[in-house]
């Protein structure tokens, strides 16, 4: 199992290094096959102009059958973007990271999806239940059962 995960991640990493990331996305570190960091920035006109956020990916041995644990980094002066689907602890409520994850998706595909999620945002605000969620949230966002109520943002 582990071999599938590491082979797949090695391949994804090689592709990132040879072909580069899409515009606005940069690889920060990928020293092992457990945790990767990217910076993500929304290009062009948007509510998030000139903001740079850091995304953390964590992989388990079942990747890509099971989805990676993805969240914004909120330590060391970094902050999660203010967005109706992003909690202040960096957790993201996006169906693609949960029940709509598909093994054919990749790390870059997730980055691009999240980038466009930010780009299409109309109003900067935290989720309504932010305080309640952050207070009780598990460390790993994959342990949260999100309810995906809004496909538009």
């Amino acid at each position: 199992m582990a071999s599938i995960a590491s082979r797949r991640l090695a391949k994804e990493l090689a592709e990132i290094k040879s072909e580069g990331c899409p515009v606005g996305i940069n690889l920060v570190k990928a020293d092992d096959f457990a945790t990767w960091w990217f910076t993500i920035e929304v290009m062009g006109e948007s509510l998030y102009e000139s903001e740079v956020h850091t995304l953390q990916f964590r992989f388990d041995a079942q990747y890509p059958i099971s989805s990676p644990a993805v969240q914004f980094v909120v330590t060391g002066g970094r902050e999660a973007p203010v967005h109706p689907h992003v909690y202040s602890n960096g957790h993201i409520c996006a169906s693609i990271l949960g029940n709509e994850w598909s093994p054919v998706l990749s790390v870059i595909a997730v980055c691009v999806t999240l980038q466009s999620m930010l780009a299409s945002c109309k109003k900067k605000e935290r989720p309504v239940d932010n305080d309640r969620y952050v207070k009780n949230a598990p460390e790993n966002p994959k342990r949260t059962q999100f309810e995906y109520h809004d496909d538009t943002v």
Partner: protein
Amino acid sequence: MSSDYEFSDEEVDNVFDDDDMDMQDQDSDADSGMDILDDFKPTTTTTRKAYDLPYESLTQSAVEALMAADVEHIRGIFGVDASTASLLLRHLNWNKEKLIEKYMDGASAMLVAAGVTMPEPEPAPSTTSTRGAGAIRRPTRKTKQASPAPTSKKDDGAFVCPICFDDTPGLTALALDCGHGACGACWGAYVRAKIRDEGEHACRCMAEGCALVAPDVFIKDVLLASSEDDAMGEDGEGAATYVRFQELLVRHFVACTNHLKFCPHPGCTNTVSCPGAAGRSVLTTIVPTVSCGVRGVVSSISTSSTIAPSPAPATVAGGKKPISRTNSMSASQELARGKEHKFCFGCPIDSDHRPVVCGVAALWLKKCRDDSETANWIKSNTKECAKCMSTIEKNGGCNHMTCKKCKHEFCWVCMGPWSEHGTAWYSCNRYDEKGGIDARDSQSKSRASLERYLHYYNRWANHEQSAKLALDLFSKTEKKMEEMQVTSALTWIEVGVQFMKKAVEEVDKCRMTLKWTYAMAYYLAKGNQKDLFEDNQRDLEKAVEDLSELLESPIEPENIPTLRQKVTDKTVYVQKRNTIVLEDTADGFLEDRWSWNVSVDGFDAPEE
């Protein structure tokens, strides 16, 4: 009330005969030539009581046969193959009527929704499909030759798995009808994760947004092939996962079928069919206690879980009469381990909660969960503010209390207003002041309801505890009797243990009844009916306590014959009392005789 749960005697016999036979087999083994157990004969011959509902226990394969019949039915109507028919049925939760109706409205939409075929507007990647109107393209295993995987072709044409990027030459792609190819190992891992981790029986194509569902044959092939590969783990894991898959299908079917319920006991895979309790509305008049037919702990499929009739009697040295039970399990172990898998068909309670109906039982359990320990603590550690009734715990300081909520100042000892205490700090030597009496009055009122609850709760809990103790006691008694059997050469003691076992079983059963009568009495509205109910309860309780006491009396070789007679008589009496309680309560539900002091689902609101 209606014929829903009145079955002919014939059917009833079918349901219960097996049990009786077993009992008698055991008995006759135990005392060939002795008729001592005849004492029990009139009562052990189980005839269905008014409060027993007819039901049938089904094994997993029996349920699978039911499923196959449904599939065959649909297959015949629609003219599709069995795999398509079962995917359609699963999609609509085995609701045949709804499926037929919807299928007639639009067959192709149904097929797409069920994950059988691809949506029409999308250009089909498959090259082999016949695109006639309504033609059903069955998802089948296809190799790369038949349908080129669209996403991952290397320039040289070799297949690269888009999931694991394996590009070993000669690797073949597996795909459903959609043509989204992946290697066998990835399919195996994916299907395994779906079934094992998510408990999901519908495995959709791995490609993003593709809704095609893998048919059973595909899943079987993938799993069995993957367990041959070293990459997927131990031998037989694929086969075990496929077994789990089949179990998931059965569970889904059972969950979708009103008159079926899975046995809730851990590891048990039996299902009970009880058409008489299929609707929620009947649950106000009957308590559908059923048993899946298995006894004891199901640890895989081992012989130890069932009580087999004793093997051929072994002869004891000295040429004495044969003694039957020489196999490893003692009667007390049998009692503890061989408990019937009884559960309620109508609610999640996994034991017999007769005589009280599901709605009331659920109310009571909820109250106990929320209240019992807390209520005890509150009762012993707190008082209520005489003015606003807030519950207050005194955790230090003097007796001059000030209620945080209403600012009422009072004395903790006499509960009277502090103003009447003048300057008598730290002491309360005044008794008859009016204020103090009033305060204590109102306090005692609020305590009364707590006391009332605890009255019922303590008796409820006590019966549960006593039932456990009775089992412990029996194992001690049994040991002692077996010792005596060795030392005193009394062969009939063997039979003696049987009468003790019977009695303990009866005590256990009756204590369960008694336990739930307290839950019922707590919610019964005051009146003649409740008085009658409590009379029956009292008679049963008295009888059970008498029998319990008898069981605890010292056992000596010389008093065994009299003890046996007493215990046997008492057991029969207890059985009768238990039947009276159960029957009368059950009749009461049918006649709508009971009224409650709270509002219960399905019953009239309580009268004020």
